[in-house]
């Protein structure tokens, strides 16, 4: 990469993240096995002759790209899980357009996620799957497990909170007093990616400045630049939030905290977390500013599963998946837990 190209990288990454993801992204080989509207379900090509019989379906958040779990060679949770003999499937929710503003939280759980699970079950001939959810995807995975318990053999919830009234910054910012959700959705439809990006950036702008200075200090180092590009492509690649999904997600979860109260309704059914009886692995981190660890760990206290484990890691919300400790701690622990079941 030429000096000029390197010099402008931080700016390029901020303004053209999705194009940069196309240009520099190196993903683990996979095949698209299902599409519906913007949804894609991918199956990673197995590396062993006989993969583990229970398929693993990974559910990312809607508002960030799926590839945080498959960032680049050497920093890919997916590649590691495939190398350990798991049959890994991934949901890519895609980028919603204006017409998707009418898709609700219920649509994403009982339509898109259910169809993804169905296609995985049909393709593998297995009656049930291991469902992994990351962040917002963790919440969807929890709701799905309550609604369709016979289809989920194991649940892995990675940083998906069940309590939304905590000391996290998003808990404060989304309070009814400060955020008029109806006005946002009625006026904008989908919540624009740019607004989400600005919101996330506003949490720690000093960190962004420090990171940029760090970049210019190390811009001669090829490995550093590659890692920087991979991570910042993802960080700057926000995706619009489907309007009606946002309305229910913020009003029922963040503002009214209905999930933890056992009063959340999805597709006409009340979500009772105690109905979860399958093996559950909950993964969280001590310094998570998006989903404080106690709000995530609470899941294990509210379910009736006998086989449940909590993995409390060091570091923050993003570092846990691709940071230095992830490869040594999270990835093997996750693979071991799934392979034993």
């Amino acid at each position, binding site marked *: 990469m030429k000096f000029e190209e390197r010099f402008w990288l931080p700016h390029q990454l901020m303004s053209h993240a999705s194009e940069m993801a196309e240009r520099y992204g190196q993903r683990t080989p996979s095949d698209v096995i299902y599409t*519906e509207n913007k949804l894609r379900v991918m199956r990673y090509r197995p590396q062993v002759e006989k993969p583990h019989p229970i398929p693993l379906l990974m559910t990312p958040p809607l508002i960030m790209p799926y590839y945080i779990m498959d960032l680049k060679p050497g920093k890919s949770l997916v590649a590691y899980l495939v190398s350990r003999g798991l049959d890994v499937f991934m949901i890519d929710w895609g980028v919603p357009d204006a017409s998707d503003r*009418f898709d609700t939280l219920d649509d994403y759980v009982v339509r898109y996620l259910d169809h993804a699970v169905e296609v995985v079950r049909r393709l593998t001939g297995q009656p049930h799957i291991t469902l992994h959810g990351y962040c917002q995807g963790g919440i969807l995975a929890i709701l799905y497990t309550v609604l369709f318990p016979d289809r989920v053999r194991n649940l892995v919830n990675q940083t998906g909170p069940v309590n939304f009234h905590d000391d996290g910054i998003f808990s404060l910012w989304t309070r009814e*007093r400060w955020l*008029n959700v109806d006005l946002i959705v009625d*006026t*904008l439809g989908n919540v624009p990616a740019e607004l989400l990006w600005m919101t996330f950036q506003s949490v720690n702008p*000093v*960190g962004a400045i420090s990171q940029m200075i760090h970049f210019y200090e190390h811009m001669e180092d090829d490995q550093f630049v590659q890692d920087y590009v991979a991570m910042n492509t993802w960080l700057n690649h926000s995706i619009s939030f489907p309007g009606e999904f946002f309305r229910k997600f913020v009003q029922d979860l963040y503002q009214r905290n209905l999930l933890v109260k056992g009063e959340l309704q999805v597709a006409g059914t009340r979500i009772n977390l105690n109905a979860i009886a399958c093996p559950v692995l909950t993964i969280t981190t001590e310094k998570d500013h998006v989903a404080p660890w106690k709000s995530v760990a609470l899941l294990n206290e509210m379910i009736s599963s006998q086989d449940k484990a909590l993995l409390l890691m060091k570091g923050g919300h993003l570092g846990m998946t691709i940071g230095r400790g992830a490869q040594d701690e999270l990835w093997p622990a996750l693979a071991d837990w799934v392979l034993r079941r």
Partner: protein
Amino acid sequence: MDDLSAAASFQVWEKQASEAWASLIRSPDFLQAMSQQLESSLLLKQQLDRALEAALKAALLPTSTEQERILHLIRKLEGQIQQLEQRVDQLSATLTARG
């Protein structure tokens, strides 16, 4: 200022600025200002959208919301047909297997 002291000064600035910012974004004054600014911009856009929609309706043209709603319904129907096709294929495969 040598490199070491420059780095140390930056670290002090970084720590203090982070703490000040973290405190600012939790303060009621900041939240009130952000909330009001967002709400004012949205209300302005809402007024402009309403005026435009009224003009389109007067000209007997569909509004963007109406078009989006129709497209959403078409896509939902497309998904349902896709699901039905898969179920028919499954049933037909089961029946074929049974002879």
